[in-house]
């Protein structure tokens, strides 16, 4: 049941050391403000799940939040590699990171299986792919009807899924439009969810662009709902502000060395709060 609360309270209420957390958002609506709150509250030994652990997980891994990563593409899209993630994998800094690596198709199927309350997902995947040899979570099953051999992966069931959405009403019904990613599946697959939104409105259906097929997560299917304007930055929120591509380009330099990274995190995360995000998108709203 939805409860409208502050982001720091939501993270305190739901996020514990050692949990499996999924922060989803496929380029669009990435919950950066919520990730920063988890970093500030110094949660540790997390299993982080995300199809595309881009800048958001580079920051969490570099700050020592994660022991394990379940993922399918670990890059800064269009820019290059994730330097903090690489440092953890290649040099064990700040700590060793265990990788559980999939393809996008398998991750998407695994979230969907979780949302559908199934133990596993079946796909025609991983044919000739060497990930099968390095990830023991990828198995084969034989179709009982045709005899075809198919790939199987376990359903993803995070303890908490964290997403950013466009808006919610006062009951906590949540609306997502634009690039949808796997957020609906990831929320429904999880025990609990924390959802940050750009704004609270009286009536979601009264919005000028309201559409009968809009993706709505009903208030009884979500957990904490927190108003955090700009909470996706440098990712974007459809209709609110565009992707801050310049910040993604700059991240490559910030993350290049450990001290530069730590200095940036101190100033922009540890000494900042969720309320700073609104200011970070102010110049983008005009574009």
């Amino acid at each position, binding site marked *: 049941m939805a409860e409208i609360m502050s982001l720091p309270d939501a993270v305190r209420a739901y996020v514990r050391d050692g949990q499996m957390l999924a922060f989803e958002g*496929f*380029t*669009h609506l990435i919950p950066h403000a919520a990730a920063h709150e988890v970093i500030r509250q110094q949660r540790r030994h997390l299993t982080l799940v995300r*199809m*595309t652990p881009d800048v958001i997980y580079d920051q969490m891994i570099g700050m020592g939040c994660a022991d394990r990563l379940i*993922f*399918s*593409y*670990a*890059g800064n*899209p*269009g*820019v290059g*590699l*994730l330097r903090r*993630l*690489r440092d953890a*994998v*290649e040099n064990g800094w700040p700590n060793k990171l265990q990788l559980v*690596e999939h*393809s*996008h*198709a398998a991750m*998407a*199927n695994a*979230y*969907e299986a979780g949302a559908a309350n199934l133990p596993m997902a079946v*796909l*025609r*995947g*991983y*044919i*000739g*792919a*060497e*990930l099968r040899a*390095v990830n023991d979570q990828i198995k084969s099953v034989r179709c009982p009807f045709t005899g075809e*051999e198919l790939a199987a992966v376990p359903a993803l069931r995070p303890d908490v899924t964290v997403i950013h959405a466009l808006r919610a009403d006062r009951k906590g019904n949540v609306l997502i439009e*634009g*690039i*949808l*990613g*796997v957020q*609906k*599946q990831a929320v429904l697959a999880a025990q609990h969810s924390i959802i940050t939104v750009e704004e609270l409105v009286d009536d979601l259906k009264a919005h000028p662009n309201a559409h009968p097929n809009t993706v709505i997560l009903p208030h009884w299917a979500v957990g904490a709902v927190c108003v955090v304007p700009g909470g996706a930055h440098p990712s*974007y929120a*459809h209709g609110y502000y*565009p*992707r*801050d*591509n*310049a*910040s*993604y*380009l700059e991240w490559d330099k910030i993350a290049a060395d450990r001290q530069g990274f730590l200095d940036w995190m101190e100033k922009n995360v540890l000494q900042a709060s969720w309320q700073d995000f609104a200011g970070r998108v102010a*110049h*983008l709203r005009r*574009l």
Partner: protein
Amino acid sequence: MSDTPFTPDEMMTIAASRVLTSDDVCFVGIGAPSAACNIARLTHAPDITLIYESGTIGTAPEVLPLSIGDGELCETALTTVGVPEMFRYWLQGGHVTIGFLGAAQLDKFGNINTTIIGDYHNPKTRLPGGGGAPEIASQSQKIYITMKQSLRGMVEKIDFFTSFGHGEGGDHRARMGLTTEGPVLLITDLAVWEPHPETKEFTVTSLHPGVSAEQVQENCGWQVRFAENLRQTPPPTDEELTVLRELKARTKAAHEGTRQS
């Protein structure tokens, strides 16, 4: 034809754009494939359907997206679906005619590595990984690959099989139970390559203007085979170059334009 000078990179993008048609439903990889696919759309293939893995179907961006999920892709798309639907219905369902991929490491049978340099458990360089590519490579009807040639990139043996091409060559795909064609074209900054009909080894069929066979060999880590009827790639036309340069200029301005002044 044009007398305007052009770079090998521009020749690569334009040569790659020419192989696409208005009938194609193309799953677009980020980077070099994205530029080529959009040049095709802006020149000779206006009705091509471009799909990015973020779920945008039939997208027509004004500027090249930096990521596979820039807002521009959604705003100009025919429709946008969720990622599970993208991979399950549209890709696994068999609707994609061309998967257009880039590669960090490639072998002569079109097998691709974008996962790791060195040993998986003790890597020299951790690359981003496969993303959508393992299933794009097996489920698209055909695969086109585009990449810049280098000794580091085109190697006798790749460090990791991220995406299966023709495996060990010959009928290896069929033996794996794959019914799709796999890699049928490789477009580099120096040449166009096609797999030998039987061995499936990539063979140079066309050299870009001003490029010698020696140059192709010097920038490739395996012993290169050349077709008997080696052709020359037609140089970029004025229209192709203009469209490409304008697209690149718009893209650069847009990506840097979000910087806070």
